[in-house]
């Protein structure tokens, strides 16, 4: 804070150098007043202390001490504020702060304390000035995108005199229940921001919202409500398209169908059986086999092969599970599901990060 104040002072002094129309103390006091309006008590304090060191005229001293008192009040230093008021009263016992009391709620009280200490009587009330009509202007971007990570809508409220401006935002469905409120006490142009996050950090849902602002001055004069109807909506996210569903042709059969496809195998089995029976005849030496009966062992084996083939043929007509294909299909389905899950996650993330669009639907 000190560094910032020093920077303000440095910039102010540098800027004031070429300006010969005002004294340095007056310029510093003017800058301090701006800082007070901006509620920057520390910066105003630094500027005013600097102003009082510039050999100010009595008038400049009066103004600097008065503003210094307000700066001290903003810094929550009532004792110092009272001393500043005392210094101001010693310069001019008839000094009044009526037009400045809106700047701080304790100003009147502390000022009266200072007046009591200094012993100056309460001066007669001045002739009331002509009443200034309080005006309030609200600026909201007509169409803007805000980042989803740190969403906030800039709003500018501007009043022509010192006033207390209350700005609220409520759902259009329940305009009497504000979701967010901001209060500014100063004159001029103030920039405020509506954070679009709820207390739990979640972004306010899409929908219509009503912005209302009203300024009230110390005389109780209030402006009409300034209203804007805002539409909050997520911008379109850049999402991925889901792949088409896997066609049936992508899957391998998980069981052999109930068809007669084993018929060729049955024929092969019969051929093998026949070959076993005929082997001694085909390959045997005719002389050696002469007089011998056919080999019963060959027939036995042949019969066994034939019987097994028939059994295989019959059992082969039943559908048979193919575990390798079942596993392959399962992996195919799992991979497809993993891909879809990843897309769902990526799309959800993209939607969450999509910027938020705020448009003013209606301006009175």
């Amino acid at each position, binding site marked *: 804070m000190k560094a910032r104040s020093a920077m303000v002072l440095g910039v102010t002094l540098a800027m004031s150098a070429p300006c010969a129309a005002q004294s340095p103390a007056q310029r510093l006091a003017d800058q301090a007043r701006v800082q007070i309006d901006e509620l920057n008590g520390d910066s105003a304090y630094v500027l005013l202390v600097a102003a009082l060191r510039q050999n100010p005229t009595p008038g400049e001293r009066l103004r600097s001490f008065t503003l210094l008192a307000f700066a001290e009040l903003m810094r929550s230093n009532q004792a110092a504020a009272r001393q500043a008021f005392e210094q101001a009263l010693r310069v001019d016992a008839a000094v009044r702060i009526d037009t400045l009391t809106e700047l701080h709620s304790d100003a009147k009280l502390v000022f009266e304390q200072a007046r009591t200490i200094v012993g100056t009587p309460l001066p007669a009330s001045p002739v009331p000035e002509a009443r200034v009509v309080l005006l309030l202007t609200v600026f909201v971007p007509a169409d803007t995108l805000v980042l989803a990570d740190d969403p906030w809508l800039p709003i500018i409220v501007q009043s022509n005199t010192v006033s207390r401006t209350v700005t609220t935002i409520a759902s259009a469905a329940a305009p009497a229940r504000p979701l967010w409120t901001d209060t500014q006490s100063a004159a001029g142009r103030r920039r405020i921001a509506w954070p679009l996050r709820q207390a739990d950090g979640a972004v306010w849902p899409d929908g219509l919202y009503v912005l209302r602002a009203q300024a009230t001055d110390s005389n109780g004069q209030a402006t009409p409500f300034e209203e804007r109807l805002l539409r909050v909506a997520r911008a379109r996210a850049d999402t991925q398209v889901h792949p088409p569903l896997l066609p049936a042709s992508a899957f391998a059969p998980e069981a052999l169908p109930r068809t007669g496809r084993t018929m060729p195998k049955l024929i092969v089995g019969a051929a093998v059986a026949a070959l076993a029976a005929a*082997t*001694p005849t085909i*390959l045997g*030496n005719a002389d*050696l086999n002469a007089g011998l009966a056919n080999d019963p*062992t060959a027939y036995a*084996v042949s019969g066994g092969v034939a019987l*097994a083939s028939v059994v*295989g043929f019959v059992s082969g007509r039943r559908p048979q599970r193919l575990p390798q294909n079942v596993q392959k299909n399962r992996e195919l389905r799992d991979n497809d599901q993993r891909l879809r899950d990843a897309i769902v996650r990526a799309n959800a993330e993209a939607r969450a990060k999509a910027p938020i669009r705020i448009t003013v639907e209606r301006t009175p």
Partner: protein
Amino acid sequence: MKQRVTGLIVAAALLLARDAASQSIEASAMTFTVQSQVRFAGTRVEQSGQWMGGDGAIRLGFLRVGMFAALGSLNGTADALHPDSKGRVTSITVHMLPRSWMALGAVAEAKAFQTDVGTTVWRLLGANVRLTPALDTRTLEGLVDVSYWPSATVVGGEAMPLALRAVVGATYRIAGGPLGIRLAYRFERFDFESRGSVPARLEQFRGATLGALLRFGR
């Protein structure tokens, strides 16, 4: 002629061979109830016996290498002209697999028969065709295994103009799993040429084989 047949088989294997990612390992044990028939100098002699053996094979892609060993005996005849003999068979096969159910390759085999008189060793070199067609969807496959030995000789003895073997049967794989049972008919024929004053001799071995098979892989 013999070399042409062998060459044709090997050439067919190379032509039909396709790169297959399959690899497997298998082992089996078998018993062979054998009947031996010999016709020599106008007489015919029959002997019988029991042989036991086993083989193992490994398949890598379209290449399959297998070994087989068996031993057993043949009972002698009552006239003592053909005494009891003990036999031993060892072979190695190298196959190309152009199809998963077809193996074409070469086989080298040695047979040794030991009697009280002495030991005779046969040396057989040739080609082998092995077909294992599926006979149903999952559990049953046929077996047709034919070996033809163009080069077949008795060590230090006569040559064999014709030497061949056929094994025909089927293998049942229990529940489609790695364990199988094989039943086959085995037939071997060896024609010995005459040599000098020794007349030609014909020999046949035939019988049923029953075995258990264990196979892992595809």
